[in-house]
């Protein structure tokens, strides 16, 4: 593999005035042409990581470790202005909630043109043609009509297609999608995932896809990073991790995935207990209070990351290389 598009090395992130870091010692890489799925329960730090990759953490957040985009450390060497110049051109994002992501009082066409502001040296007609082309690529019917409409006149599925088109118009080297389908119904979700799968193919760079749905990872991603309470518990290729999960949390997530349950039951299995609060993290393994395989050592000592092969690791005392 050539140099990774995005490389995180021991990244910890603490919000201003938060009692503890929301993300701790996370390391992974995404290469050109790859799609990384980040999974984890609510509050595990997925959106925090996404914000960090965009350089959009709240002012006063504390980041340690290194987060490199094309070799440049976003938090070491770059100014606010440098970061801004990456956004909308080299790095683009698709938001979670299409209903609130767009300006409510501006027509879709004008918004899409504003999002292309880095390309405003191109003639207006060319920009408009690109917008139309992109709206067709995300399979939007009547793109001409849509461009003249306001967000409140459109459905969630259409709005999310618009958001995808907006991100693709940036021609990014890194595309970040933070749960782009959670606000949508199941049918629309399936359509949007299909469009995402196609869209990825046209990209020249890497994609980070955040979700809590293992079947989405299986469908769209090459690699996976499993987060639990701000820590990376397991990472590797989708085939390896889903085919042969090593960490008890990954196993539990897979057991709860409705798509993997063979006999339909009325109740979905869930992982017992809840994610510990930021200021109430256990001293030993962070998953210990909920872990079905916990041993005495887990309570006292946090497990290190064990390498299980190239770019494959798990953080659990029971895992041995």
């Amino acid at each position, binding site marked *: 593999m050539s140099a990774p598009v995005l490389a995180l090395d021991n990244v910890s992130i603490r919000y201003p005035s938060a009692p503890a870091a929301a993300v701790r010692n996370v390391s992974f890489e995404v290469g050109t042409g790859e799609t990384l799925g980040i999974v984890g329960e609510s509050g595990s730090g997925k959106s925090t990581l996404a914000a960090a990759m*965009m350089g*959009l953490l709240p002012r006063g957040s504390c980041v340690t470790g290194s987060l490199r985009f094309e070799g440049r450390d976003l938090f070491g060497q770059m100014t606010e202005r440098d970061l*801004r*110049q*990456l*956004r*909308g*051109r080299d790095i*683009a*994002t698709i*938001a979670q*909630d299409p209903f*609130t*992501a*767009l*300006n*409510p*009082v*501006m027509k879709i066409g004008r918004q899409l043109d*504003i*999002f292309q*502001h*880095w390309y405003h040296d191109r003639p207006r007609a060319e920009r408009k043609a690109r917008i139309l082309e992109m709206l067709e690529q995300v399979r939007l019917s009547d793109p001409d009509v849509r461009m003249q409409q*306001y967000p*409140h006149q459109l459905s969630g599925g259409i709005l999310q297609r618009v958001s995808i088109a*907006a991100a693709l118009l*940036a021609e990014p080297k890194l595309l970040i999608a933070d749960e782009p389908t959670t606000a949508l119904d199941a049918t629309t979700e399936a359509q949007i995932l299909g469009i995402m799968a196609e869209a990825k193919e046209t990209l020249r760079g890497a994609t980070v896809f955040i979700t809590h749905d293992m079947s989405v990872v299986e469908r769209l991603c090459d690699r996976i990073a499993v987060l639990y309470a701000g820590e990376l518990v397991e990472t590797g290729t989708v085939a390896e991790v889903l085919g042969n999960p090593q960490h008890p949390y990954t196993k539990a997530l897979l057991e709860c995935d409705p798509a993997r349950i063979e006999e339909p039951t009325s109740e979905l299995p869930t992982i017992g207990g809840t994610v510990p609060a930021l200021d109430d993290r256990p001293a030993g393994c962070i998953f210990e209070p909920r872990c079905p395989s916990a041993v005495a050592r887990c309570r006292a000592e946090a497990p290190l990351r064990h390498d299980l092969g190239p770019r494959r690791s798990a953080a659990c005392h029971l895992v041995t290389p």
Partner: protein
Amino acid sequence: MTTYLLRRFALGLCVLIVSMLLLFVLIYAVPGDPAAIALGPRASEAQKAFFREQMGLDQPLAMQAASFLWNLLHGDFGTDILSQRPVADLVFAALPRTVTLAVVGVIWAAAIGTPLGIWAALRPNTFIDWLIGVISTSVVALPAFLMAIYALILFAVMLNWFPAIGAGEPGDLLDQLHHLALPAFAIGVAWVGYIARLVRVSMLETLAQPHVRTYRSFGVSDLRIALRYVLPIAVVPVISVLGVGIGNLLSGAVLVEVVFSRPGLGSLAYDAVLSRNFPVLLGAVVVTTGLYVLANFLADALIAYLDPRLAEKG
């Protein structure tokens, strides 16, 4: 959009008619005999009776009100008891001066208050935000007539920079502007603070909306986001509050006109009150109410233009 505006317009008309009737009843309930006032203490009973009949004062109140409304519709505002001139002439001669005063007062206040509000919203909870907050809160409570008196004493009497009374020579624009400066200043001061505070709150609220983050995630600069995309949304609630506040502004203008002996609807109404010149008083108030309703309608139209969602809801 069109139905929305039509509906707003109809609402404005209703407000106008109801307030006309209310005013009419209120003014004629005031004690004092207009006939005695108009004709002087030496008039005989017969003369007064003739006058009442001529003015329709001997009719039942409901009849008077109905014919008053009917006449208004035809542009007939009645006759000045003292000078026997048509009230419409007096009122429409005074109207442009008051409108100019109010509009210039609001415009300069908005021109200062809006940037202050934006500045404070872009640096929330900093020293500059605090300073702007202190200044705007302390001027909000200043009554326009008090500002007028202080401005008059300081800038006209002591420093002699501006003329103290009148509205300037007709036809001499510079002279008129010179006369306008102090009254417009007095009217606008409180509004600077009011607008700054409204704009700050509204900007902060809009800046917190998720779509603002979308602009940031596309690398649009913060200043551009604030001025080009957030401000047009943030001014919507400010405009509707201002539309309603025009009533306050007009009543401020009345007193300011009196302080500066400036001809206008305010001085007209003031003199009419002192002399119980009911037709003139009523005419002045009718036109002022009309201005108020018109200002509200314009505010609604501007809002409908800025926020298409409102217009659709109707």
